[in-house]
């Protein structure tokens, strides 16, 4: 990648530096050619006329100017197939003009250049078609397009893997560490019962059980933070309803998502709602919030609005985090929060494969 970028910069600079001189060089060329032609024509006039030989001089001068113009035009096109095509077209034009002029000067009754013109035109048409169909794509452009495709695909793949992995970690915690701690509290509870006649030891066992209980609670919060069980179990609609029920403010839920989007999209949508409702509960002064979501064939759109005082900072930590999450999926997050006008957070998440 680095070399491609360097290359590109060099080309751009070269073009910029040369931009002023070719124009004046061509103008000078035209002026000199006109002067030479005029001098020759004058000599012909002064030497008594006769056969108008300066016509050949004029043709030669015109040819040199035309070549100059074509080369200049081709060099202004980006390097690669586009420049080759410009050169091809310019060359064909010069050759056609030359042939027609020769025909005119020789005064032949048949328009013999027609065959050459047809062949030139056909060749040019084929070349143009090849470029239009993308069979000859400009090298760097094609390389970059392929790279973008590849990066989009692999980024999405990485995010899919991550979402699936997080759910697996949640399940491993549930069946592993959490389950063992639960078994531990059960055993400690039974031990505590059997120590009714040794209250001081029973008290120790009891505090051990309470500690184990705290560890379980912390693991539970951690698990919910990485992959809420209800989202994996029931999907977005139930998970958003659950968020609404847990929220400290009244939440109206209008979510209609029949087909389940991929886990990574579902999780992003969930966290947009969770974070926004948390913000609303903190800043909207108890005003009710509303969650709306619809899923189309290739996009999930969701809106979370509240009737609070607005004025949310779209570049605040929480919203920036959400924006990153959404943009990583090629989605869009918009925040509308005029002072005094409530806050609306809208996320558009592509969910096609």
């Amino acid at each position: 990648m680095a070399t491609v970028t360097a290359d590109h910069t060099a080309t751009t600079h070269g073009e910029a530096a040369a931009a002023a001189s070719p124009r004046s060089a061509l103008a000078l060329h035209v002026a000199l050619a006109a002067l030479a032609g005029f001098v020759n024509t004058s000599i012909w006039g002064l030497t008594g006329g006769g056969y108008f030989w300066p016509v050949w001089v004029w043709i030669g001068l015109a040819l040199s100017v035309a070549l100059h113009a074509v080369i200049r035009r081709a060099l202004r096109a980006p390097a690669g197939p586009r420049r080759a095509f410009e050169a091809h077209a310019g060359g064909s034009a010069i050759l056609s003009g030359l042939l027609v002029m020769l025909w005119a000067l020789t005064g032949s009754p048949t328009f013999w250049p027609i065959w050459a013109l047809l062949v030139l035109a056909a060749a040019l048409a084929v070349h143009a078609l090849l470029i239009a169909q993308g069979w000859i794509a400009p090298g760097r452009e094609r390389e970059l397009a392929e790279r973008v495709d590849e990066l989009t695909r692999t980024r999405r793949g990485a995010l899919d893997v991550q979402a699936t992995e997080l759910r697996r970690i949640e399940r491993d915690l549930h069946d592993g560490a959490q389950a063992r701690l639960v078994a531990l509290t059960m055993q400690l509870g039974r031990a505590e019962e059997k120590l009714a006649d040794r209250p001081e030891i029973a008290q120790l066992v009891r505090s051990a059980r309470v500690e184990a209980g705290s560890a379980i609670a912390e693991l539970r919060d951690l698990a919910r933070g990485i992959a809420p069980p209800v989202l994996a179990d029931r999907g977005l609609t139930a998970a958003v309803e659950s968020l609404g029920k847990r929220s400290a403010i009244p939440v109206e839920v209008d979510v209609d998502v029949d087909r389940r989007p991929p886990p990574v999209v579902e999780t992003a949508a969930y966290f947009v709602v969770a974070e926004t409702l948390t913000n609303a509960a903190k800043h909207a002064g108890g005003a009710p919030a509303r969650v709306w979501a619809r899923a189309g064939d290739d996009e999930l759109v969701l809106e979370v609005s509240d009737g609070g005082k607005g004025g949310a900072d779209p570049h605040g930590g929480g919203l920036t985090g959400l924006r990153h999450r959404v943009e990583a999926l090629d989605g869009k997050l918009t925040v509308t929060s005029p002072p005094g006008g409530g806050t609306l957070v809208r996320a558009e998440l592509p969910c096609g494969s």
Partner: protein
Amino acid sequence: MRVVIAEDLALLRAGIVALLREHDIDVVAQAEDAEGFLRVVGGHKPDLAIVDVRLPPAFTDEGLRAAIEARRRQPGLGVLILSQYVEPVYTSELLASGEGGVGYLLKERVGDVRGFLDAIERVAAGGTALDREVVAELVRERDGGGILAELTPREREVLELMAEGRTNAAIARAMVVKPGAVEKHVSSIFSKLDLPASDDDHRRVLAVLAFLRSA
């Protein structure tokens, strides 16, 4: 009391069974998955089913669904759900699933043997046993200036303890007040929530929860 248990993790299942048998509770059958659970419930007609929310084969909420289905097949079956997490959506579904006692406890509550056995007794008798975290979620749900805002902090506390399924006497003990004070709070709560008072603790709790769910 005849009990069936559905829990896929052998470690936990063995622990619960051992605990119950030490206290002369008759564990008539055990199941590892939802299908097996429905089969043993059909075969043994127990008084109470203790069910883990997450069961094979998909390890999502099969246990909860199976428990609700079991209640549909055997009306009045007491169901005590054990889970490693509190989920208001699941609690609401369970509470809406018809007749009979229901409970939803976090698994680690089993370590509080006395409290766990009390919960089993209550649910088997047709009452409720909701984890304090479940109650906190259900109550917080209505925290945003709703009708619950009219309750005093003391009354809120009484309501939460009631929702866990405790009797007035137990609430009085928990709050270290006289039973008469609790009764006063309870009737005040009912008048504020516009619920007709009743002698039956469990029906009162269900009425309160119905209000919480529907508000």
